[in-house]
């Protein structure tokens, strides 16, 4: 259990103990009664009796097996004794023949080197009994297909390094030996977690085993004389932030590759007001940033895009298909328990006419519940509660079954979505990940989107889950606690479900007369070729109702130049009609704040989050910065965000990271293409 959860549990129990009532609260009684009534409809409701019968049956079989074993041993023992006596008489004849009276007293062996068949058999049997206690060597299975993703980078940024697998070892058990290179050996013991592909006991003092992240590089400064256009797809995913938060709350530093700056930035609420009539509203703000960066004429520019809001009452009906990973690894840290709690919460927020279907996958994929209306809540909750973890991870089959169900239940004008809940898709089956991604993309184009929800640390594939969410025209989120599930499903459920704009792309056209160079901070894996901005077949990002996306640039202006700085173009499709809309907005130096302190609190918050992410991922552009610097700014800012739990938590996370991070890290900075300017 995590520290925050332990504290909350202890506080809860202590406060209850300090109360002096002999009655439970009404809320407790009502909630328990409702859950108990739901249990009436659960499948296998006589679980206790069936378990008891099954237990008795197993006991009986065990007793019978032991008794049979004892009888066999006694029988063999008796035979041995019989053989000994008979062979002694034989030996006696030979001894007479050999003239050596000692042979009479030799056990078992009648003539040296010769054993009687019965003795030989009993010796072999005894050896077999001894061998049963030793682990049997397994024939290694062929290594499972590794998930190697092609680099996503296009245009001017060179391809990143190949997929880097991070295997890790719990800090508390340094004595474990590294096992890199050992073949995959599946576990047969029912209670052991299937070993993660790519790593078992983690080496190299890493925090968790088999965590898969990808290094997408760090955007360089781009000279506007070379290229004044910056184009990318929007992103509302938050998985990177929540994964890194989990690392920090567990007392570990996240790997550099786990940090995606845009997902850190987009986790926070900057208070953008929603448009009244249009689909989007765009915000722009800029302020000097040299004080932080140490680079002359450096400015931070923030663009914010806010999507229209849709009330819960006006939300389209939802037809959701849960595809749930119930492989053995979901037993770790009770991940499946968290999945169930999260889905129960989601079910309770849905409307009676919404529909839910459930498919699962472990060693096999299967349907658990055909689509039913949410008004049959008990049936849905019972199906969720009945899920148990075990077996390997045949994700491909589970996802296919989920899509087959979604196809059958598909209805025009509704939100048709597959929600994948997994801790990491170690084995996507024989056909490989690209085929699955193609299927998902194809279905998304036809109107069945997919969102990927990640759970658990260790055996977790961030790379693939993010791609699934991206290809599925949905989103990717990581859920480590029930609070995060509440945030996702309780906070803005309509936004989580209803897409208001598809293939959203942004192109910023910098004015080379005023702007010398620019650097997009983050979005490295969302790059779009400049000439594809108006290609409507080119994939962009999806944005749900009420969602916002923030993009930050560091720009350097020519000395003493003023005037128009940039025109920002937004292009997107209507999710229903596929009609394309484009609009733009300008920002000029006259709109810039005179100093950083004049900027809004939301701007300052975005800057601190960016600085934190840049230091954590060891960005070249923050190489002279430490978390001390970030923490100071965060603490000053937090006084203005007393009502914002996320901002308060940010300070805590920076503080934790500061305690863990070595004072002068000698790790190589992340950033392959550093355009280092020589300032005039």
């Amino acid at each position, binding site marked *: *259990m995590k*520290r*925050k959860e*332990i*504290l*909350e*549990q*202890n*506080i*809860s*129990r*202590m*406060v*209850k*103990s*300090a*109360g002096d*009532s*002999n*009655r*439970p*609260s*009404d*809320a*407790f*009684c009502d*909630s*328990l*009664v409702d859950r*108990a*009534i739901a*249990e*009436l*409809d659960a499948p296998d*409701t*006589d*679980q*206790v*009796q069936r378990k008891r019968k099954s237990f008795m049956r197993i006991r009986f079989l065990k007793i019978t097996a032991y008794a049979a074993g004892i009888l066999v041993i006694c029988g063999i023992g008796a035979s041995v004794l019989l053989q000994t006596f008979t062979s002694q008489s034989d030996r006696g004849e030979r001894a007479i023949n050999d003239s050596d009276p000692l042979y009479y007293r030799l056990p078992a062996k009648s003539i040296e080197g010769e054993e009687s068949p019965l003795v030989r058999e009993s010796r072999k049997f005894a050896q077999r009994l001894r061998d049963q206690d030793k682990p049997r060597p397994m024939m290694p299975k062929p290594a499972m297909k590794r998930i190697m993703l092609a680099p996503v980078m296009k245009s001017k940024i060179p391809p990143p390094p190949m997929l880097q697998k991070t295997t890790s070892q719990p800090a508390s058990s340094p004595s474990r030996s590294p096992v890199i290179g050992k073949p995959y050996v599946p576990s047969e013991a029912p209670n052991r977690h299937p070993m993660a592909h790519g790593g078992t006991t983690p080496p190299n003092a890493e925090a968790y085993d088999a965590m898969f992240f990808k290094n997408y590089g760090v955007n360089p400064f781009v000279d506007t004389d070379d290229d004044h256009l910056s184009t990318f797809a929007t992103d509302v995913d938050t998985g990177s932030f929540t994964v890194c938060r989990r690392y920090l709350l567990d007392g570990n530093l996240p790997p550099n590759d786990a940090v995606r700056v845009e997902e850190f930035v987009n986790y926070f609420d900057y208070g953008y007001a929603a448009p009244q009539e249009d689909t989007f509203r765009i915000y722009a703000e800029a302020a000097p940033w040299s004080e932080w960066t140490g680079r002359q004429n450096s400015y931070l520019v923030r663009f914010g895009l806010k999507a229209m809001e849709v009330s819960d009452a006006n939300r389209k009906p939802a037809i959701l298909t849960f595809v749930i990973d119930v492989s053995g690894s979901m037993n770790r840290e009770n991940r499946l328990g968290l999945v169930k709690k999260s889905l129960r919460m989601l079910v309770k927020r849905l409307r009676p006419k919404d529909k839910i279907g459930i498919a699962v996958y472990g060693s096999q994929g299967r349907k658990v519940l055909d689509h039913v209306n949410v008004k049959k809540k008990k049936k849905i909750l019972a199906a969720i509660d009945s899920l148990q973890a075990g077996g390997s991870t045949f994700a491909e089959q589970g996802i296919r079954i989920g899509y087959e169900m979604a196809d059958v239940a598909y209805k025009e004008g509704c939100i048709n979505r597959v929600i994948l809940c997994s801790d990491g898709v170690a084995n996507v089956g024989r056909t490989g990940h690209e085929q699955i991604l193609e299927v998902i993309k194809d279905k998304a184009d036809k109107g069945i989107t997919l969102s990927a929800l990640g759970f658990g640390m260790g055996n977790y594939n961030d790379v693939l889950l993010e791609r699934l969410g991206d290809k599925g025209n949905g989103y990717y989120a990581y859920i480590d606690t029930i*609070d995060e599930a509440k945030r996702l499903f*309780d906070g803005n459920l309509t936004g989580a479900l209803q897409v208001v704009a598809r293939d959203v792309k942004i192109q910023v056209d910098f004015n080379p007369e005023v702007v010398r160079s620019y650097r997009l901070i983050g979005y490295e894996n969302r790059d779009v070729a400049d000439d594809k901005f108006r290609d409507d077949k080119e994939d962009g990002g999806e944005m749900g109702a009420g969602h916002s996306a923030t993009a930050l640039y560091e720009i350097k202006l020519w000395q003493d130049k003023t005037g128009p700085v940039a025109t920002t173009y937004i292009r997107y499709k209507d999710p229903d009609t596929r009609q394309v809309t484009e609009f733009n907005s300008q920002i000029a130096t006259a709109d810039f704040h005179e100093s950083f302190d004049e900027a809004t609190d939301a701007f300052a918050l975005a800057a601190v989050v960016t600085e934190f992410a840049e230091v954590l991922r060891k960005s070249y552009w923050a190489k002279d910065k430490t978390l001390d610097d970030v923490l100071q700014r965060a603490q000053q800012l937090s006084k203005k965000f*007393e*009502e*914002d*739990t996320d901002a*308060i*938590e940010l300070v805590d996370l920076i503080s934790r990271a500061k305690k863990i991070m070595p004072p002068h890290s000698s790790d190589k900075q992340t950033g392959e293409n550093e355009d280092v300017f020589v300032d005039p």
Partner: protein
Amino acid sequence: MPVAENAEQLRPAALADDAETWRALLKRAIPMIYGLFVRRRLNPGLAEELVQQTVFDAVRGRGSFDAGKGTAEQWMLGIARNNLALEMRKRATRPSLDGDISTYLAGIDTAPLPDEVLEKAETARLVRAALDELDEREQKVLRAKYLDDLPARTIAQGMGITEKAVHSLLYRARNSLREKLKILHPLNEEEAK
């Protein structure tokens, strides 16, 4: 077969899947079972856990109810006593408390507090004193959340703030209570003298 003492006691034949009958039974039985545990000096958090355990055991094992042996409430109380006995047996095998409660309170965010610590009168006194030192809003939100078990939405409506502000207030209140306990627990008081 025992005669029903009053018309409200459940008739054996109704212990099937009838939701309304079960609802009526549970509304009567839950406070009785809870009272049983609290009178045996179990802390309220543990009492709630055992009540839940008892209720689910009853629902799942309803086929084993024998009308000839008593009413449904009596049957459920029997299950409750069994669960209580199991809990006591578990405690007997655990090592006794090592050190005074301050040792445990110092680790309030690293390990669950043992039930025995929560059941000490000294702990309750300390927690009440710490709660009284918090500011009014923090006290109110902690009591609403943990004594009254109200959801954040209801608390927000009652306090006239947003749900997000409730979460934020809870976060601060928990941390404040932790700090107050550290200041107030006996070890620190002795050192201060």
